[in-house]
């Protein structure tokens, strides 16, 4: 037996295993070099930004570094009553440096995210602090504005003490850490994010369902029609794909507005009266219609590619074996299209959940989605860490959907084309 397990040598006397490794090493290096540019590209354009986003969403060192003395003094303060003189003194000293270095604007922006009203009182303090006398800073600061005497504002400052925070994530689901360190919901009238999350999910879900209901017959037709007709139909499916997203959305605006083509037609055929035209845009209806149309190809194409591979003789076999056309469809054809359905639905859902331009243009107030909120924080409030946090929450949501799909159907069962 032992002689059989002896190492096999090549004709040169090198062990075969080593020789094989050597021979394959070159190929491996070649293969790696071929994918290296793409790998690098993905790293630069995908992995780094995502990592940066993750970091940014929890990073709060900016405020920590701007008020080092204050936070040190605050360590012993329990946050229940007004902070002691030491804290005021430290804050005065920190702020003085910031004003001298002209960095106090940034601080006011950051603190304003935490609590509205900081901007004006910090500005006032910046002016007044020049004339401050030494000692008893507590009273001097409290005299600048009555809000400085409000313990809430000092608590807000203390909340920004840690270098890393998950408060942005809490804010994303309308929650915050209160004075006692408990996580509670924000007052009912300010819970806007929850509504947006639910609406985003709802829109994505319904758009996926609509796309499926419309895309399935189209894909079936595409896969079964004779070549000359199916090519034409394919162009019809792809034509919107080749048109700019903006153009398509704009054309929906022309069609759907109250004085638009669709409404004119409804009036013409007497479905609605002229003074009672339904609003089909700047609300959820507009978002549904436009997004369904725009995302439809993403449903049709994977379905088509799967259906194309299903032999027509399978349906025939189902029928000849005694299944009614419905049974043959449901038991034979439909199960075979599930990989395509999975791919299409996943694709449409994931695209819909992060959709931005269309809801921004036709959604109006009741049709905007979470991505619009993210954009708002990116562009208008410049609270990038909050935008990052919400972006990551969205990404997590997508990954959860992906995971559920994998559990239910199996990701290897997916077929994109």
């Amino acid at each position: 037996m032992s002689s059989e397990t002896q190492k096999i040598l090549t004709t040169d006397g090198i062990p075969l295993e080593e020789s094989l490794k050597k021979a394959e090493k070159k190929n491996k290096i070649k293969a790696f070099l071929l994918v290296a540019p793409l790998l690098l590209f993905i790293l630069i354009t995908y992995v780094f930004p995502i990592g940066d986003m993750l970091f940014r969403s929890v990073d709060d060192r900016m405020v920590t570094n701007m008020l080092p003395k204050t936070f040190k003094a605050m360590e012993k303060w329990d946050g229940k009553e007004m902070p002691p003189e030491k804290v005021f003194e430290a804050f005065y000293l920190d702020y003085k440096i910031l004003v001298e270095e002209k960095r106090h604007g940034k601080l006011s922006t950051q603190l304003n995210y935490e609590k509205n009203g900081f901007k004006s009182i910090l500005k006032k303090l910046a002016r007044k602090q020049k004339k401050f006398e030494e000692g008893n800073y507590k009273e001097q600061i409290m005299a600048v504005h009555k809000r400085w005497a409000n313990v809430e504002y000092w608590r807000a400052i203390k909340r920004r003490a840690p270098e890393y925070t998950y408060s942005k994530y809490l804010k994303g689901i309308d929650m915050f850490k209160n004075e006692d360190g408990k996580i509670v919901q924000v007052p009912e009238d300010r819970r806007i994010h929850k509504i947006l999350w639910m609406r985003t999910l709802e829109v994505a879900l319904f758009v996926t369902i609509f796309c499926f209901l419309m895309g399935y017959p189209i894909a079936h037709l595409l896969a079964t029609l004779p070549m000359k007709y199916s090519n034409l139909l394919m162009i019809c499916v792809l034509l919107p794909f080749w048109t700019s997203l903006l153009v398509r959305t704009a054309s929906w605006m022309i069609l759907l507005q109250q004085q638009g083509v669709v409404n004119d037609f409804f009036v013409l055929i007497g479905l609605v009266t002229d003074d009672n035209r339904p609003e089909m845009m700047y609300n959820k209806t507009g978002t549904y219609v436009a997004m369904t149309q725009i995302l439809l190809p993403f449903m049709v194409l994977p379905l088509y590619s799967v259906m194309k591979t299903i032999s027509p003789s399978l349906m025939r076999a189902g029928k000849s074996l005694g299944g009614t056309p419905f049974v043959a469809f449901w038991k034979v054809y439909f199960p075979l299209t599930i990989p395509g359905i999975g791919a299409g639905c996943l694709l449409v859902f994931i695209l819909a959940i992060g959709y931005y331009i269309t809801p921004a243009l036709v959604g109006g107030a009741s049709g905007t989605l979470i991505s619009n909120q993210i954009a708002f924080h990116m562009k208008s409030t410049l609270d990038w860490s909050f935008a990052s946090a919400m972006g990551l929450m969205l990404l997590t949501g997508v990954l959860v959907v992906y995971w559920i799909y994998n559990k239910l159907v199996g990701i290897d069962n997916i077929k994109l084309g």
Partner: protein
Amino acid sequence: MSKNQQYVRFDKVDKSYDGKVLVVKDLNLDIAEGEFVTMLGPSGSGKTTCLMMLAGFETPTNGEIYLDSNPISNIPPHKRGIGMVFQNYALFPHMTVYENLAFPLKVRKIPKDEIDKKVDKVLSMVSLTGFEKRMPGQLSGGQQQRVAVARALVFDPKVVLMDEPLGALDKNLRESMQYEIKHIHESIGVTVVYVTHDQGEALTMSNRIAVFNDGKVQQLSSPDELYEAPVNSFVAEFIGENNTFSGEVVDVSKEKCKVKLNSGNEIIANPIRVKSNGEKTMVSLRPERAIINPEDKMDNKHKGKIEEVIYHGDHTRVRLNLLGNNEFILKIPNSSARMDIKVGNEIKVGWNSQDSRALDPKQ
């Protein structure tokens, strides 16, 4: 036990797909109960269309098809009770072998224990017992084929249709499957309509063969009759090997006719499709009916020059230039008697006149 001689009946069936060309022309065909009938023909001859019309996937443009004396043109495929084996098997890839076989029974609402019994029985018939849990993709081509056959039989259909079922198999497997299908047919006695373009397959398996060409049945008869006594030049050329001479009838009697060939020679033939002098004809002769060094009583004796000799093991094929036809094939059985078969030699060849059939001229 009197069997219905017109169990399946095509009655003046026409079929056209585009309204311009008839794919099937005035088809009349009767198939008896329990019979194994093969539709044989080149591709595009209309045989698959006939099968599809019988299965219900195509409707006749004109005429009617009867199954057990009932017209079936208006019955949808799933109510016809016809089993079908498809060219590419058409097994449901997402179902196990058991589920595939149970499908026709489940849709007929047969109770579970009876389904199990029937599936067991049919699986043992195709010798695939123990394969119930396999997926079709895990089976070899031959096994898939057997499952397809089993599935077409499991619900005791009135008729089983097979559309070139062995086309995808390799030669050896194809031959063994031919026997297997033939034996299954013999043991359960179901009516089988089989479509193929492989004449070997048709000759081995069938009770009767319908030779299709150009949308018409050229000849419907038993394999031996088809081979020995083709009624026209198409059948003669299509089935088996064939030596042909073109010529003109110069003298016709009841059993014999003299044909003057284009080369000027005359041969004696059996008048099948010729009736009068001056008619153009094609004389057909099977290679194995012509022999070397003919006996005296043979009424056709001619000399030919050997052009090519091909060794085939059990026999030797010799290509001769005989009476102006240099494609004349002769099959010489392999025997110990060495004959002078070498390229360039002249040999004597002869045959009986009733084996050389004077048919219609080639189109």
